[in-house]
């Protein structure tokens, strides 16, 4: 039994890391644009499809398999650079300052469009290429075998937490984002081009989601429906952590990851319910999330 605890913990942390990539982008976009993007999960799955296609291409041409790692990263960059500005400029910007109902309807429409586009381009079969995971191999400590790829995922998630915190607190862009989050009109009045900040923040959110999807493919592959699945998980995480909270999203991801893996281990039937049970408990005790407050719109 105790032998099973550590791999279980690693499993939950690795799954938490993937959820975190999706959730932190969602929460970042929400705090800067004040739009809850219902299509965010689909950007995760599109990132997954692009990455899996790139990895399959590399495998089919028998190129250096280590190129797959580059492919994972560049797939996310590619999705963010193309879809990020396009979606923000063409759709999201019309919803600024509108009621939440309008924002949710419009982003839900975007979700439907993107899901169908994804089916149109990548078909309905699942994509799976685990070269990056196989390349990293395993480590055996005390008779327990670990997947190094899982450790990489956890490390990358921590890197994103630290990187985002450094970006927000110690760079010019971060300062400008903080000002826009605090007060849009004031930000404009002191010379900040808020449109530019919105495009950048949205694209950064898309990048993080697409990166999560790309990193997820070597472990579990991508299939239709992944976008919706990850969206509800990301939303649960954002709600538990408090909308707009980077570290909150990290802690909440671990809670959701643990809840899921423990449920799968002990009561598999509750797998799908566990994250929401965790959300319910947290929100009953702290209605604005673990790190949120009534006025919280900070980063």
């Amino acid at each position, binding site marked *: 039994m105790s032998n099973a605890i550590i791999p279980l913990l690693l499993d939950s942390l690795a799954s938490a890391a993937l959820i975190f990539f999706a959730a932190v982008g969602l929460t970042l976009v929400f705090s800067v644009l004040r739009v809850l993007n219902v299509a965010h999960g689909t950007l995760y799955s599109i990132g997954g499809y692009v990455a899996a296609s790139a990895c399959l291409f590399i495998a089919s041409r028998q190129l250096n398999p280590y190129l797959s790692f580059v492919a994972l990263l560049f797939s996310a960059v590619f999705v963010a650079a193309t879809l990020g500005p396009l979606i923000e400029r063409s759709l999201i910007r019309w919803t600024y300052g509108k009621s939440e109902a309008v924002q949710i309807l419009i982003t839900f429409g975007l979700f439907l469009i993107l899901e169908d586009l994804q089916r149109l381009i990548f078909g309905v079969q699942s994509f799976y290429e685990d070269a990056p995971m196989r390349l990293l191999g395993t480590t055996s400590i005390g008779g327990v075998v670990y997947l190094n790829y899982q450790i990489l995922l956890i490390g990358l998630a921590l890197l994103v937490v630290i990187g985002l915190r450094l970006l927000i607190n110690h760079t*010019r862009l971060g*300062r*400008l984002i*903080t*000002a826009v989050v*605090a*007060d849009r*009109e*004031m*930000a*404009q*009045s*002191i*010379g*900040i*081009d*808020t*449109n530019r900040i919105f495009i950048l923040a949205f694209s950064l959110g898309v990048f993080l989601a697409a990166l999560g999807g790309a990193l997820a493919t070597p472990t579990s592959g991508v299939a239709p429906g992944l976008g919706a699945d990850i969206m509800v998980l990301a939303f649960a995480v954002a709600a538990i952590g408090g909308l707009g909270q980077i570290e909150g999203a990290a802690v909440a991801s671990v809670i959701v990851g643990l809840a899921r893996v423990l449920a799968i281990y002990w009561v598999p039937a509750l797998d799908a319910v566990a994250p929401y049970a965790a959300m319910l408990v947290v929100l009953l005790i702290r209605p604005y999330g673990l790190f949120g407050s009534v006025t919280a719109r*900070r980063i």
Partner: protein
Amino acid sequence: MLSLDKVNVSIEGVRVLREVSCGIDEGKTTVLIGRNGAGKTTTLRAIMGLLRLDSGSIRLAAEDLDRMPPHYRAHAGIGYAPEDRRLVPELSVEENIRLPSLALKLDRAETARKLDEVYGLLPELKVMRSRPAGGVSGGQGKMVALGRALTVARRVLLLDEPFQGLAPALALDYARTLGELRKRRPELAMLITESSPALLDRIADRTLQIERGEILVTSAKDRTTHASAI
């Protein structure tokens, strides 16, 4: 310097400014007097591009501001201190004052020069520069907002009800600071709104009165030289 020509503005379908025309001149302090709800703040917000004009135009020198995005005003040298301060609470006082320099991409030397200018005029800000802006009093917050606006105001400074809610001693300080500012920046065009004319009588070159969105008196008092005003 700054001129409004037949400006009409509505907020949620209600006309708030009607045919407002006025000029804010270089080197002059113009005071806009009006009761609550008369349209003072709306006038300033319209100048800053935060509200859309129904009709009319706002020009800076020869340049039409209407077609420019809101953030362009700061780049063109119009500084604005809103009545409710609007500081970033989690940043320090100094970080708040530095924000415009970051936004306007000023180089290090220029940023330091602006900061010196602000601290020279408002030495009390230097004392509390590392405190979080969320923790300063309302009156101190007004000073921070003035300092922040000054780093932007190369040509025009807009102050919205600077004395509103200030303790008498602070109000006196603030008025003295504005007098000092006029000496240090003789070319600056200033527009200050206030609900009571008495407070700004001594620093006003020109007084405009606004009532129900209309400017009633365009020139109550024109002083030719400024020296007599201080």
